[in-house]
């Protein structure tokens, strides 16, 4: 697992914010700009979707990304492919080493299946996505919420076809950076999940920067 650092200076960033866990976020990243997500305290899952700003019906596609790179995990060099077979962004730096795109987002309803019927009340990533798009992205709806990226999350898949949620391999201060090939809307839920080790059972803030 090769790690690649970035030379970009946070002091020079044009956008810089800290997003607490359990919050949604969206932002337009312009073509040529670089987006960095920093796992401030370690082992946080950052559920992320991308949409072409020009035509949001074209969006990040996990299955096309996996197939075209011939590998399940995302890291430096992974092109983030769209549903139209085009590259939306490229991962250009990564000090974590592996990111998931099969585990999807938690939701009230899937939490009931995975943990217990009575867990429905608990906060979830899909609720973050839905509130963010209801409030700020009227061009998007539930139809647009498909298999996302989980930055910093560790979901190992075995050659026998098994899949698990493991303790994270991230650590405080690790980051991932991607450069946009076109104008994209980034939609993020900073995961509030308390029922599995994807956040180390302790959801924490992340920092989001754009250059």
């Amino acid at each position, binding site marked *: 697992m090769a790690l690649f650092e970035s030379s970009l200076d946070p002091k020079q960033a044009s956008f810089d914010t800290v997003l607490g866990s359990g919050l949604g976020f969206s932002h337009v990243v312009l073509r040529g700009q670089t987006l960095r997500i920093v796992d401030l305290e370690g082992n946080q899952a950052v559920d992320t979707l991308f949409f072409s700003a020009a035509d949001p019906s074209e969006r990040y596609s996990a299955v096309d990304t996996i197939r075209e790179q011939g590998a*399940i*995990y995302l890291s430096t060099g992974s092109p983030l492919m769209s549903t139209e077979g085009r590259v939306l962004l490229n991962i250009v730096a990564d000090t974590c080493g592996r990111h998931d795109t099969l585990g*999807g987002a938690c939701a009230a*309803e899937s939490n*009931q299946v995975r943990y217990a019927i009575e867990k429905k009340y608990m906060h979830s990533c899909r609720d973050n996505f839905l509130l963010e798009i209801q409030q700020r992205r009227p061009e998007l709806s539930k139809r647009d919420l498909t298999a996302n990226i989980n930055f910093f999350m560790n979901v190992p898949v075995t050659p026998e076809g098994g899949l698990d949620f493991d303790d994270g391999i991230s650590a405080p201060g690790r980051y991932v950076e991607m450069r946009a090939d076109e104008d994209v809307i980034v939609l993020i839920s900073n995961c509030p999940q308390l029922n599995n080790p994807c956040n180390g059972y302790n959801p924490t803030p992340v920092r989001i920067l754009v250059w």
Partner: protein
Amino acid sequence: MADESKESIVDEPLRGGQMWSRVLKRGQSLRLTDIAGGGSVAALFFNADQPLERYNMPDTLKAQHIARITAGNVLYSDMGRVLCSVVSDSCGWHDTITGVGDAKQSLLKYGAGDYQTLRNEWHRNSRDNLLVELGKYGLAKRDFGATVNFFVKVVPDAEGKLSWVPEHSKPGSMVELRSEMNTLVVLSNTPHPLDPTLNYTPKIAHIAVRWAEPALPDDRCRRSCPENERGFLLTEAYFS
């Protein structure tokens, strides 16, 4: 297994290159057969009564701790319900993580294959096929998610690198789904984009729909993990 004596509702070929769709009523079964072997049938699933609810690949995988589909597994919707159960499978592995090909890939791989020249032997691709079929129900690109690719096996190594497995599905391989909701099933039968064969040679498949045997309390799909027990409970609650 479905009762063979029961009258078939659908019993027809799915030709190479063809797409197909139907609403399976709750309790009906769909059996797909890869007649020649080496087939690849891509599928999308929706709650026919409210198509905003649809097959969710990540929820299906993480609920059952799987990275492939086979007998005993179920297909989850994004609303925590079971759309279909996989009640039997002689193939052992159906892919759901590598998507389908599109017109651009088809042209690059197989060369031109237009209708003007080839008539109904033209090179159809599953992206376009599924979009056409979705359009018949008012669904569109935004409703296009991860497919189940029946009869396809793409296996990861320890580092996550993927390999397409040749000759995975033997002639006559069958997979049978039992619909646990009123499920719109949309199918497209074209070669998988990772199949290295350079000639466009989609394989013929066969579709059979009939009423399934009712699921018993010890049903294999329901009992395969506690998550599925809850998934079935939530599905029953939706219909009660």
